[in-house]
């Protein structure tokens, strides 16, 4: 499925090939709807010709004789000779054609709109599906605005050429018929009429060349504007605290001005393109008139033929104009399509890479054997962050990973949860390569520093839609010391049914983290990885949570990244990492005794208190 999806969005070859791919993709995504709509457009085109002919017939056979007091002719004359009745019949025929036209228009446009909606939804779905399949490094390297604009404006822009698609394709029959009639009528007039096709194509090709880079530049500025808005609103509290509203506004304004200029450049180009395209049919009609006049003077064609040729040219131009609309939207659509394609192509992570089932018994065992762990941004070669790490987490023990910022602690934690990959050496769970373990989520639970809380009930936030009883959920909440809070919640519901706002905005940072811990605990993981997951939790509560994990003896193996000394000393074992490698491992006491770097790192508090006591002593 993954490979198929990549092919679905992979663009290659010339501009024309890419454009065809975008159209082909749409037709394949919603074949029934596009088919029906194109069919309706085809019939509509035929009716347009019929409409013209019937009008002529009625004037010739009914109106002129009726007014002139002559007998009604043709089909109408066979029915009645009463001018009043004949004209009523003619009127009724018109209304009938009108009704059929109206129905066909409803079908063509209604179904067409549905088809475009389906394609737009397809683009959005691809982006939605990519979120959890993009490597974490990709998310770090790319701002959220990129995904958001792929979801909104790119998905819309990529479907823009599809709006006139059914009409254009459907009316090609009309063009072919008109062209055919022209050719049998007179080759010179046909040739003149045909010149409109290459002329329009040339204009479009030039237009595409000129506007594509401009459009591309505009779109990246659009993403930047979106980014600034995102960042600035996210940091709204800080902006307010610093009274930096004006500064933020001017920062945003300068990007908006850039976008304005870029969009103006795009608009300036399309403002000559559209009128030029509009002028093509009148200009070629004029050419036909000249050629027609000469041919008529030479006696090669009749005057009626010339009039018909002008009419036919107008019909031929309908689909060409449609093609112009499709092509006119194509450059921007291609850029957007490619932006979605790049996201789709970078979404390389497989939901379930494993196939080996590991029994879920007791606490888990984790081992790193000379592992080189890399971060992958999805766009290039993975970058190795930690080198040659060997460590072991024994079942049921608590291990603290200690090190300065940037030492590689998080990378190790992610590797233990298979969220970053060992490019050398091995990471094992219960002596099995972690890469091949099936349903790893049921063995290892990771709680990252930034808690993931979404708009929804507490229950949904804890279970993530999986089947846990309310009792289980309450137990987990209790173990994460957040049950009191949840019992007290009253927001569109109470208790587990209370609603949390987007990103848990109605909770404090510590509360969000505890919700995230409860989510891990309800799954009764065999290995629990806490990546600085208690940083905003009150120290007392943190202690309570960690102590409870160990208390019942049947707890999981815990890998803990923490900074508080009180938490570190709770660990059975401490691993000191520095600059992407393991410096030492042992009990807190052992490391204190033999690892000077470690001593310096963790005893900062005590040194601080000592110094303060000294200072206080000096003063008093």
């Amino acid at each position, binding site marked *: 499925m993954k490979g198929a999806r990549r092919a679905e969005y992979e663009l290659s070859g010339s501009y024309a090939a890419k454009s065809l791919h975008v159209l082909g993709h749409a037709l394949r995504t919603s074949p029934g709807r596009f088919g029906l709509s194109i069919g309706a457009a085809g019939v509509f085109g035929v009716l347009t010709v019929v409409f013209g002919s019937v009008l002529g017939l009625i004037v010739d056979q009914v*109106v002129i004789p009726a007014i002139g007091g002559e007998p009604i002719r043709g089909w109408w004359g066979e029915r009645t000779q009463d001018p009043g009745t004949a004209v009523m019949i003619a009127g009724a025929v018109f209304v009938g054609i009108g009704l059929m036209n109206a129905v066909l228009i409803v079908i063509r446009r209604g179904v067409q709109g549905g088809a475009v909606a389906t394609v737009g939804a397809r683009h959005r779905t691809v982006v939605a599906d990519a979120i959890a399949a993009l490597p974490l490094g990709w998310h770090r390297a790319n701002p959220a605005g990129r995904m958001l604009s792929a979801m909104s404006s790119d998905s819309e822009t990529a479907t823009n050429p599809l709006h006139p698609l059914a009409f254009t394709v459907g009316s090609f029959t009309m063009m072919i018929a008109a062209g055919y009639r022209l050719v049998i009528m007179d080759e010179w007039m046909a040739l003149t009429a045909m010149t409109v096709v290459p002329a329009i194509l040339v204009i479009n090709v030039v237009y595409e060349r000129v506007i594509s880079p401009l459009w591309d530049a505009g779109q990246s500025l659009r993403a930047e504007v979106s980014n600034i808005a995102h960042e600035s609103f996210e940091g709204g509290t800080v902006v307010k605290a610093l009274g930096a509203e004006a500064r933020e506004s001017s920062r945003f304004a300068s990007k908006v001005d850039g976008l304005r200029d870029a969009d103006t450049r795009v608009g300036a180009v399309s403002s000559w393109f559209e009128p030029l395209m509009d002028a093509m049919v009148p200009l070629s009609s004029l050419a036909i008139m000249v050629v027609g006049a000469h041919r008529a003077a030479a006696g090669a064609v009749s005057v009626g033929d*010339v009039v018909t040729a002008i009419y036919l040219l107008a019909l031929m131009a309908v689909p060409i104009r449609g093609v112009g609309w499709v092509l006119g939207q194509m450059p921007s659509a291609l850029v957007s399509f490619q932006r979605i394609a790049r996201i789709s192509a970078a979404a390389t992570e497989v939901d379930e890479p494993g196939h080996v089932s590991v029994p879920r018994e007791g606490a888990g065992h984790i081992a790193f054997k000379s592992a080189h762990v890399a971060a992958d941004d999805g766009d290039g070669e993975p970058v190795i962050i930690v080198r040659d790490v060997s460590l072991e987490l024994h079942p049921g023990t608590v291990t603290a990973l200690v090190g300065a910022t940037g030492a590689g602690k998080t990378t190790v934690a992610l590797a233990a949860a298979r969220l970053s990959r060992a490019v050398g050496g091995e990471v094992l769970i219960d002596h099995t390569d972690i890469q091949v373990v099936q349903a790893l989520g049921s063995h290892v639970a990771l709680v990252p520093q930034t808690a993931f809380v979404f708009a929804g009930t507490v229950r949904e936030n804890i279970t993530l839609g999986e089947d846990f009883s309310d009792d289980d959920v309450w137990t987990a909440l209790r173990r994460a010391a957040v049950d009191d809070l949840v019992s007290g919640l009253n927001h569109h519901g109470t208790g587990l049914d209370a609603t949390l706002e987007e990103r848990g905005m109605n909770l404090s940072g510590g509360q969000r983290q505890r919700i995230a811990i409860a989510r891990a605990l309800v799954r009764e993981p065999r290995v629990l990885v806490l990546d600085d997951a208690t940083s905003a939790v009150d120290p007392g509560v943190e202690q309570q949570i960690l102590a409870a994990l160990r208390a019942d003896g049947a707890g999981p193996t815990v890998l803990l990244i923490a900074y508080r000394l009180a938490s570190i000393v709770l660990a059975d074992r401490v691993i000191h990492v520095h600059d992407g490698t393991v410096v030492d491992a042992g009990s807190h006491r052992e490391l204190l005794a033999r690892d000077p770097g470690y001593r310096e790192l963790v005893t900062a508090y005590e040194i601080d208190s000592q110094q303060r006591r000294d200072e206080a002593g000096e003063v008093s």
Partner: protein
Amino acid sequence: MSTTAPGAAAAQDDEARMGVRQTFSRGFAISPELRKGLGVTLLLALVAASARATIPYLTQRVTDDGLLAEAGVNVNLVHWLVAGGAVVVVISMLVEWRVRRRMVIAAEAGLATLRKRAFHNVHRLSVLTQNSEQRGRYVSRVTGDVDTMRDLMQWTGAGMVVAAMESTVVFVVMALYSWQLALVVVGCYVPLLVVTLRIQPVIRRAFSDIRARMADLLGRTSEQLVGVATIRSYGVQERMRTKLRDEIDGIAQRERRASWLASASFSMTAFGQSFATGAALVVGTALGVRGDLSVGTVAAFALLVYMFSGPLMWIIEMLAEMQRAMVGWQRVIELVDAPTTVAEPTTPTPIPDGEVDLTVDSVRLTYDDDEEVLKGISLTVPAGKRLALVGQTGSGKTSLARLLSRFFDPTSGEIRVGGVDVRDVSFKQLRSRLAVVPQEGFLFEGSVLDNLLYARPDTDPDGLREAARAAFVELGLEPWLETTAHGLDTQVGARGELLSAGERQLIGIARAYLRDPDVLILDEATSAVDPATELRISRALELLMKGRTSVVIAHRLSTAERADIVAVMDSGELVELGPHDELVAADGPYARLHRAWVAQTRD
């Protein structure tokens, strides 16, 4: 607020939404660029439209006088007519080009202004409003919603006026030929137009609903972007995707419905064309039989009806597009006009110079209609003294701190700085005299120095660099700065994520220090970081708070111990107030809290 029923919320919204005329007048008032030179533009557009209208006339002349000339085909006349036609076509093309260019320039300038105004107002909304509405929605308003109006502004709007002019001109011609037939034609269109216009509000609601759901989808998406690691770790990728897919499918379903509505509305006019042509033929022939009309006039009407209905159909077609654009426009205008609950005073009172005290006077606070969060708090922090706020999560200490910094206003009661109610102080002065070091060490993408610029926006780069370096030295942070890759030029990444939480806080402290405020509010500025950084933070904070009136939300024993006064909060009430030693001796709630702290730290 209501994330649960977006559709209902959207429908409700819509009832309150302004009409088309209001939207235009308010929209033009917000973006005057849209109106500037509009008269000239429309005049030029009229010229282009009139030029276009001469083409059928030319065709008729070529046919009647050139090809059907009594003395055979008059090639010479055809040449002249065609040459004249070509000139007209080219002129009309050039004029249309200028018109479009003018429109593009005006539209882009107007939209830029609209974006800026909307953005500006978001930051004027209170922290409460900012939080309760999903932030992704604000982003979608200043981006996507504005984009939906581009076509309307650039061409559709003026195009509709021009098309209406074209129809009017043709109608006048029809009336000149035969006023009876002209009335018949219009009579056929009126009922259809009435129905079509009736459908428009339905279509607008449908589009408005779609935009609202789109904003929900973006909100959900940005949530999941935050939670990627969790989602993958628990193997719930499919479930999370399903949530988004449901939203996406919901949007597609509504788009399909809107498309049916729009096409039904469009087909009405297409039907109108046949209907009117038929009616014109019937009535025209009847009139002709009575001798009131010539054959030529009746036949000409067929063409005239076609020319009359063409622009009309285009207008109706564009109405649907316009609905979409109007909804976007209204949403942005609403944001520009959203009332700011925390208002700037009209006649600000200055805070007295020098050290100032901070008074909380019977302050009560209720969020929305929920429970009361602060139940009558009164306390005073004397000038230059330090108050530590202590209490469980949810005790109301964060809310109190936010009131002190005027992120929002109390439901009742007053907060005074140097004896002046903060509501009477200009924002500029309040923010310069009172600094907040917020809970989250949020940094903006850019360098460390870029972030410090927020503290002193008026300083030139060299001056700032110097001041920043001095600040780091004075706060004892120089050794830390030296460990960073490029010192003050170190890039901090989006949201400051290239730095650790502790490092972000250090920069936050330096930022506050550079502001040199008289009053400091520290909101949980000391969450867990690595011990070395922790030490730096507490030292820097000491230096920052020295000599300033400070309120600090304390999570640490040491912070509370070092404060001059400790205020203990519980369930929105102030339960204890006094110096640390006295409270410990009093053996009340604070003493219990203190014992627990001691037990932890002396591990």
